[in-house]
């Protein structure tokens, strides 16, 4: 049964599934299909022998996928660093698995896209990165500015304040110096300020300023940031502005009292954001489980922090979208998943078919499902060898 219905080939999904055993991948007909070999080359659990074999594949795309696979062993990766196709060398240059010697060599590659990939690799040696920061090609310098491990001297060399993209890349880089970000929060362009507001390491001082930005998208991004000062979050929770209340309702650092208040907000969008917040208090979750709005209940059903009894209660919800979210909730247990495997809606059963916590018996039951979406989900998502073998035929 390698096809769910006429024309739907399951072999690429099976070849890419990290739980498909090596011997089963070998049986999928690798020799006859570049698409299947390409899928196997992306598999993070692919056997080193298979990746070594695929590293010399005649098909450029297959070699490219091998080079991009973080599990690729050093030896084939070193060989691919000499590939005549520049895009394959790009993959090697960006790989977290690339040996230091290979990165050093590719730092002086004639192709700018290869040097750019080296410049963006967090493992690029500091002296090489400093050289690349003054590369004549803007793309290379831009990649230095995106390197989250770049030292201040490299970022300073690569930076051009008159270049819009240069400002954008620095604004989003968690390695950017505080003094640089302090300038960028006053940039006239919204995308630059927005990038600072989304910067993982933006300081509370900067976020305080951005939370009062003239542009609402910048304000809301700052209010969603976990480092946004608590008094600002508390203040925004009480404002007569739905967009701002929605933003803080989604902030995982929003205090419990405010989250409880937002869980009873008059706007469904605000309650929905509270329902999806990983820090939603149990009392607020109980309130939200009885919400009249199905979207709110669905958001709660997808929240992995919600206590199991509430999730179990939501599994009987009349709305498909609520049960559907449980099928995607990573903390749903095998018993609940087994129950939902009999759901009348194919979308719900398809969710169970890919759920990593579903028992083998549940997935075996779904092998006979009439819906193509269910069978296709088993092929890429099941972790049970006998189920995958049955699909491979």
């Amino acid at each position, binding site marked *: 049964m390698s096809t769910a219905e006429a024309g739907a080939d399951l072999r690429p999904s099976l070849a890419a599934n990290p739980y498909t055993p090596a011997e089963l991948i070998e049986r999928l007909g690798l020799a006859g299909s570049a698409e299947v070999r390409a899928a196997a080359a992306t598999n993070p659990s692919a056997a080193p022998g298979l990746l070594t074999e695929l590293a010399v594949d005649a098909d450029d795309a297959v070699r490219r996928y091998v080079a991009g696979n973080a599990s690729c062993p050093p030896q084939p990766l070193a060989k691919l660093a000499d590939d005549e196709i520049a*895009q394959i060398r790009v993959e090697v240059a960006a790989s977290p698995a690339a040996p230091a010697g290979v990165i050093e060599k590719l730092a002086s590659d004639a192709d700018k896209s290869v040097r750019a990939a080296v410049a963006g690799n967090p493992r690029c040696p500091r002296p090489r990165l400093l050289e690349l920061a003054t590369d004549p090609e803007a793309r290379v310098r831009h990649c230095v500015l995106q390197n989250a491990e770049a030292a201040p001297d490299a970022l300073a060399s690569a930076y051009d304040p008159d270049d*819009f993209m240069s400002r954008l890349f620095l604004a989003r880089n968690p390695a950017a110096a505080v003094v640089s970000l302090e300038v960028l929060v006053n940039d006239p362009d919204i995308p630059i300020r927005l990038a600072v507001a989304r910067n993982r390491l933006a300081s509370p001082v900067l976020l305080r300023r951005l939370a009062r930005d003239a542009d609402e998208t910048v304000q809301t991004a700052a209010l969603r940031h976990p480092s946004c000062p608590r008094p600002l979050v508390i203040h925004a929770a009480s404002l007569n502005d739905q967009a701002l209340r929605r933003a803080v309702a989604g902030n995982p650092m929003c205090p419990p009292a405010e989250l409880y208040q937002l869980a009873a907000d008059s706007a469904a969008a605000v309650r929905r954001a509270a329902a999806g917040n990983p820090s939603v208090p149990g009392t607020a979750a109980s309130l939200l489980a009885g919400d009249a709005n199905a979207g709110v209940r669905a958001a709660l059903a997808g929240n992995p922090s919600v206590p199991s009894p509430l999730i179990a209660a939501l599994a009987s919800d009349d709305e498909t979208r609520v049960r*559907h979210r449980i099928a995607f909730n990573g903390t749903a247990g095998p018993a609940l998943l087994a129950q939902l495997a009999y759901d009348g809606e194919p979308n719900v059963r398809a969710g169970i078919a890919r759920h990593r916590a579903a028992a083998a018996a549940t997935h075996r039951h779904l092998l006979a499902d009439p819906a193509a979406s269910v069978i*296709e989900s088993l092929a890429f998502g099941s972790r049970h060898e006998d189920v995958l073998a049955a699909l491979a035929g």
Partner: protein
Amino acid sequence: MPEDSNPWPVRWIVDARWRDTGFAMLRRALKDDERDFFEKVAADHRIIGFTHFGPFPLNHDAYIPRVKNSSNPKAGWTRPEVKACEAWAHCFRDPGRYLPPDPPRMLISGSDFTDENATWKAAHADGRPAKRWDLVYSCLPTWLNELQKNWDLGKACVLKLADAGARIVIAGRAGVPGLPRHPNIDCVPKLPWSVFMRVTAASRVAFLPNWWDASPCVLPQSLALDVPVLVNRQILGGWKYVTPQTGAFFDDESDVVDAFFALLDAAVHPRDWLVENGYTQDASARRLAAELRALGGSAWLDDLDYAIPADFRRPSA
């Protein structure tokens, strides 16, 4: 007669037999080395502005580096090539904000000319692909794509979606710094068009966090593959394709997960909608011809019933 060396901003408008209609299109502001070619074309063609490049015809220093007066974007209207446009085919919700006030306007984009059958065939040449991903997002590693495809928002959303259990394939980001590492996210390189169409067909939803994007072709191409779209509400162009039958809008990373799951459960018919609403190559060519006829000025225009942007042309009709 292939004319691939023509500068990117200038394209011909041809009829059904690929003959020159006497119209040409301007797709962005000219660089110095493109001006001579444009002037030769403009000498014997009527120029229609097409909004294909960010906020063009407005100036912005992201698009026209070192323009220095980006605080006055409407200075872009004073460019000679912009003044040469006698009408504007545009993609904007609010055309008055972007276009010069006087010339006639038509809501037509290059993306309207999607060949729905060629798109379908490209994706299904080896049979229908099984669905392997929930969302596909394309963002090539060029500054233009970084900006237009809105990588900052895209990355934030993709991580939220992956945490919520969705499987995402990102095309074009391989080798680019700052990729989100997550077991539910596959990053693939820039793909040949037919392979990318197959990857799109193997996805349940096409994800477009795009912002300053003047109607991306990938949007109607996804619809042609019967794949619904999840689109940033702020997208410059392409919003007209987003309806309850084809997809949904989202605002930011705080509502993208809910919007995605709601879309998965919605009854959508993207390909049927695309065809029924005239966003196919032939229907759009008839619509553009009608708009050109309405401009008047030439007796022979009365017979023009098909007009399409093209990279090459045959001698005039």
